[in-house]
């Protein structure tokens, strides 16, 4: 039988197609939409709230049946969300929520839990003490803030002997590289490094190589490096031993679940308003598991 979504138009304002995780998410939603017979248009938010606001307004002119919105910075899309509500177009949200407004369903990855999982991993690798570098994402990004909160809460509650030094790398490998190098110059005693995404790990690894501190997992002097996302490149690094672990999210389940909520909404079934997708820790042992999204996409 045809899906209730058949023939419906879906406008998907994406976070930005410059990010591997997002590209995978978008591709998956696209594939599902095609299966359900929806007409989908994807807008590339380019990681910029102003662009997204403009896109949202432009999309409203086109009167689609469904809007799927993944805000870069939800607070800044408050005004846009209000307009969508006024236009009475059902809104589905991913990853970030504005302070007010209405939406049918919200799916997100549990970033706080992700931060906590990272803290556990760090503690496990360091024996619960030492100086840990946290390479964080952009100030003002909701994801980064939740990861930060989860990590620090967990550390404070369970591993008080660990000191955290936060480096403001704004999601980019370039920044992560210089900041890491300089953090080591300041004090070469580093027990572990955790970065808010896998992209920044590229900078971290490059920094370690530059200062001659890059030892593979298992070798003497190895500094545990933990990423976030579970991108193919991250998994590859785990296989090679330049990265120790990764906090995996799952774009596939996030995409599938939000499309399922759309189906529920239009067929009158109960809709799960908030869905939190839990992190999966990836280590060398399970790096080849076909469940890891990074193994499902081939780059």
């Amino acid at each position, binding site marked *: 039988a045809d899906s209730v979504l058949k023939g419906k138009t879906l406008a998907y304002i994406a976070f930005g*197609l410059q990010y591997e995780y997002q590209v995978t998410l*978008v591709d998956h939603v696209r594939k599902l939409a095609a299966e359900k017979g929806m007409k989908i248009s994807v807008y590339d938010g380019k990681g*910029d*709230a102003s662009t997204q606001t*403009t896109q949202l307004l432009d999309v409203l002119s086109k009167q689609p049946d469904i809007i799927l919105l993944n805000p870069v910075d939800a*607070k800044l899309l408050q*005004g846009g969300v209000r307009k969508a509500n006024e236009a009475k177009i059902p809104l589905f949200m991913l990853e970030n929520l504005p302070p007010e407004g209405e939406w049918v369903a919200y799916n997100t990855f549990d970033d706080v839990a992700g931060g906590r999982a990272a803290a556990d991993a760090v503690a496990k690798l360091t024996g619960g003490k030492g100086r840990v570098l946290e390479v964080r994402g952009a*100030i*003002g990004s909701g994801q980064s*803030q939740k990861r930060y909160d989860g990590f620090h809460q967990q550390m404070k509650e369970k591993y008080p002997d660990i000191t955290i030094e936060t480096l403001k790398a704004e999601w980019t490998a370039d920044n992560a590289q210089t900041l890491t190098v300089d953090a080591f110059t300041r004090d070469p005693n580093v027990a572990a490094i955790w970065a808010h995404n896998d992209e920044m790990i590229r900078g971290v690894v490059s920094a370690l190589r530059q200062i001659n501190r890059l030892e593979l997992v298992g070798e003497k002097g190895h500094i545990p490096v933990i990423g976030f996302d579970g991108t193919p490149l991250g998994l590859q690094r785990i296989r090679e031993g330049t990265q120790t672990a990764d906090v995996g999210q799952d774009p596939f389940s996030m995409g599938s679940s939000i499309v399922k909520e759309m189906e529920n909404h239009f067929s009158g079934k109960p809709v799960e308003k908030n869905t939190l997708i839990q992190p999966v820790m990836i280590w060398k042992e399970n790096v080849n598991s076909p469940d890891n999204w990074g193994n499902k996409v081939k780059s």
Partner: protein
Amino acid sequence: MTMENTQASSLAPAGQAGLQGLRGRLSFIDLMQSVGLLGVILLGGAVMSVLSPVFATTRNIENVLQSATIIAVVAIGQTFVILVAGIDLSVASVLVLSSVLSVGLVQFQGLSPEIGVVVALAAGVGIGLINGLAVTKLRIPALIATLATMTIARGLAYIYSGGTNIAPVPRFFVDFQAARILGIPAVIVLTLVLAVIAQIVLSRTSFGRSIYATGGNPLAARLAGIKTERVIVLAFMISGLMSAIAGLLITARFEAGAATAAQGLELAVIAAVVIGGVSLFGGEGNIGSMLLGVVLLGLVQNAVNLLNVPPNWDSVVSGLVIAAAASLDVYRRNYLEAGMRRKVIATKSARTPKT
């Protein structure tokens, strides 16, 4: 037709009549300068109306203009600075600083919204003053001076807001955003009012003329007794004020004091201003055609969104459209210029010799 007549009459004794005719023709050329960009816009608009049925709707045009207001307001200030051969990179940072102050002073310090607005505007003017003094007194190149304040102001905005965006905003921001005057969104009306004031200041006041003189030939301006340093400082202060006003607009639009917004806005603004015919070397340009540059960039963005160009191809398409628009405009100007030169010289050499 008229031109032919002018040629004939310029044979008359004093050549006065010929010059009169030329004067009329010159303002016609000025008109063409703006109309040229308008032509590019209309042409593009016509193509778009065929490609996308929703393009030519009031709703869509209103959206485009409304989205363009923030860049437009900042661009008005930037125009003053570029006219004096400066450049202001700090605009986006001043904008976010103004935005977080306008909300934060109410949220954190419990001040009244009016005071918040006033302090936000004052901060913009103050940073403009610092930029201006750094450029004129310390003689730091404008690019470097405003790069420094750009970094500093953004830092201050993050520090003050704690790195996040501040919400909710005072009620009147929301009301203002929703307000309409004669059916036109108030933000658009405000922008137009600011543009008209700026254009009048530039074209009809001695301060405005001093701006053009200072940018067109600073030495000549100084020798003529114009206080060029003061003019430059004022231009930067105006840019600061306009950016601060844009900060309030962005607060209204996003309903938050936004520390993270407007990344890279300075380049977009400078691009719009230059496409709008303001010379980076100073002394040339006007608000009217400058605004057409802003609108053109807004339309390109809108077209790309409406046509749902595949992700990342949109960048390619906008780049091509910008290049095409710019070269069309340049082509038109050269064409016009060549035509004009021939006419001027023809009139001149036909004049009766005086002994």
